[in-house]
Structure formats: C-alpha cells, structure tokens
C-alpha cells in the first residue's frame, strides 16, 4: 500500500496556499484515494489493481493543483471600485503622460500626471488591501512606496530650482547628484523596509522594497545600455560614463536607502513568520 499522503504531496507539487491549508488539502485528498483503494479491494481487486484504480481518479495532477490553488485561496476577485474607477483612471492618466513625454510637451503637466498616477495607485492598493496576496503586501506595495516617495522627492528638488552638486575631474563632470534628495532617501528606504517587515516579508523582500528606486534605475540603465551601443557604436568613454552614472544614480542612492532600511532588516521571530500564514 502506498503512503497516500506522500504520494499526493509529491504529485500535487507546489500549490500556492498557506502551509496549514496545503496540509489540509493533502490529507483530504490522500484519505479519498485511500478509501477508493480500500473500496476496490473490498470488492475483490488485488492490491496493485486497487492502487491503480485509485490513481485513475486524477488524470492531470498539475491541472488539479492549479484548480485547488485557485479555489482554496482566500484571495477574492478585484473590488468594483478598483475595476471601474482606479485602474481606468491610472491607465488614462498614464497614457496621457506618455504621449506628453513623447511629444516633449508640458513638463509640469507630465509631473502632475505622475503624482496623480502614484496617488491613484495607492488608492487602489488601499481598496484592495484585504485581497492582496502575501507577495504583493510584502514586496510590490512597499517597493512602490519607496520608489514613488524617492521620485516625488527628486521631482520637488528639481521643481524648487535646486542645482545638482557636480563632482569634476579636470574639465569633465563625472558624478552629479542632489544632496537634499540624497538626505531624504533614508526615510523612503525605511518606509519600504518597514512596510515589508509589517507584512511579514522575508529579509530579501525588505531589502528589495527598501532599495527599489536603485534597483529599478539599475534595471532601466542595463536595458538602455545595449541600445546606446547599437546607436552610437561602442566607445570606451561611454562605458566609463555608464559606470559613473551607476555610481551617482544607483550606488550612492542605494547606500542612502540602505541606511534607512537597515533597522528593519533584522530577521523576524519565528512566531512572526508563522503569523504570516494565518
């Protein structure tokens, strides 16, 4: 007789459910298969035939696992307000903003649209807070908070007419940054990491949430780099310039964000981890 529980656990593979619900499902399905097999043996079948008959109850375990993940998950469909108001509004404002960026028109309106999109995104998140899954609560939402906070702060620095601090080597500007902006970054790093910690996010999620502006900037720069080489051809100075941009817009801001995030990177107590699954 097979170990039905082990068999179900192996065949179902990874189902996206809290550990206790997952165990519940495995136990229930295993008992069902056991009973099918027992019933077959009671009607005169041999052990192996009874086991084979029980296994015929499921043709595709992967499909079953996906159906169970969906139906046993406590996540509810999107709120009507989010579907009919927040998301369409975000899409419209974002599209208008994008058109203005491409046309290189109305810089002030572009900035206003950016802030409005951020505000609407938070409205949507607040509306959906009860329905958000663990990853969204512990990673995406905190990361967005940090990113929008840092972006807003940079925008305000630029709008207020502040001049960037420029480091020169000889006649060449090498790194430029806004001191006041850098000074605000620890606050946003702390906010992202704290939100992630509060949602019982693992340390990796807290670091990613706290450093999201730098990580997003790094990704964007790495994506743009090949296009630069493709258009202008490869030059050593381009690579040096890219490295300096990395220092000014990724490494130094990351350090500032990390200073803020650091107090919230301590590993959670085991009870906290368990509570995350309730």
């Amino acid at each position, binding site marked *: 007789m097979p170990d039905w529980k082990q068999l179900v656990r192996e065949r179902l593979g990874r189902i996206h459910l809290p550990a206790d619900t997952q165990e519940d499902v495995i136990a*229930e399905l295993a*008992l069902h298969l056991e009973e099918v097999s027992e*019933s077959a043996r009671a009607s005169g079948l041999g052990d192996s035939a009874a086991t084979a008959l029980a296994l015929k*109850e499921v*043709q*595709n375990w992967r499909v*079953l696992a996906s*159906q169970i993940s969906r139906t046993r998950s406590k996540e509810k469909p999107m709120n009507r307000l989010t579907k009919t108001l927040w998301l369409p509004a975000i899409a419209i404002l974002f599209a208008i903003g994008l058109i203005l960026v491409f046309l290189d028109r109305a810089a002030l309106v572009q900035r206003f649209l950016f802030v409005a999109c951020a505000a609407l995104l938070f409205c949507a998140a607040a509306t959906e807070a009860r329905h958000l899954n663990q990853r969204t609560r512990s990673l995406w939402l905190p990361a967005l908070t940090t990113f929008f906070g840092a972006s807003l702060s940079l925008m305000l620095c630029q709008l207020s007419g502040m001049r960037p601090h420029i480091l020169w080597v000889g006649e060449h500007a090498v790194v430029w940054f806004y001191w006041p902006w850098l000074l605000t970054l620890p606050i946003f790093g702390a906010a992202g990491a704290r939100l992630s910690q509060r949602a019982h996010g693992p340390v990796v999620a807290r670091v990613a949430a706290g450093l999201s502006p730098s990580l997003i900037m790094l990704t964007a720069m790495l994506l743009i780099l090949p296009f630069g080489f493709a258009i202008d051809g490869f030059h050593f100075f381009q690579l040096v310039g890219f490295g300096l941009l990395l220092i000014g817009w990724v490494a130094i801001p990351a350090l500032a964000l990390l200073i803020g995030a650091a107090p919230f990177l301590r590993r959670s107590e085991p009870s906290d981890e368990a509570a995350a699954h309730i």
Partner: protein
Amino acid sequence: MPVTNMTKRIRSKIARGSGELAILSLLAEQPLYGFEIAKQIGERTGGALKFTLASLYPLLYEMEKRGWVEGRWQVNQAGRDRRYYRLTATGKKQLTPLKQEWRSFFQALDSLAGVSHA
C-alpha cells in the same frame, strides 16, 4: 462529427451545473465527506453522474469559497478523521433557484427535442 471547443465548453458547463445541484441536494439531506458524496451520487444516479477526485474537490472547494457549503474535520463512525461538508444558509438559498433552473432547462429541451427528464 468532431467535438468543437464550443461543444466542450457547453458540456463542461452542464456537467459543472449538474454537479453543483447534485452536491447541494445531497448535502441538504445530511453532512457528508468527499468520498461519500462521490459514492452516493454515483449510486443514486445509476452511474450517470460520476465524480472522480479531480472533478469533485475543485468543485467542492469552489462552493465552499462561495459560502454554499462548509467543510469541517470530524471523526466518522469508523473512528477516522474526515472532512465533512454541510450546507450553509447561503447554500440552502441557492438550491431552490438551481432546481428551478434545471427544471426549466429540461422542459425547454423536452419541448424542442422530446427529451423528457422524467
């Protein structure tokens, strides 16, 4: 004649709808656990409706999510732990319109093609 995707979808919806009605009707009589539900549906419909593990539990969990049924671990007569499902108040409210829907469906088919459900 080949079975089109549309035909498959219609069949699937009919099977799903009939499954819901069968489960709600059974649980209206008494709380049952998964294997018993499948067994009784098979026996009482003469094998016309047959549930396997793969078709039963996603439907049961879906109905539980909608609040029509509630599952709870209990010890059965043989002294073994089983997850028993019972009908909730919401589930009871669903049963009457669902029965009516199926009655109308069969009447419509009967008048069209002479297919009687009796």
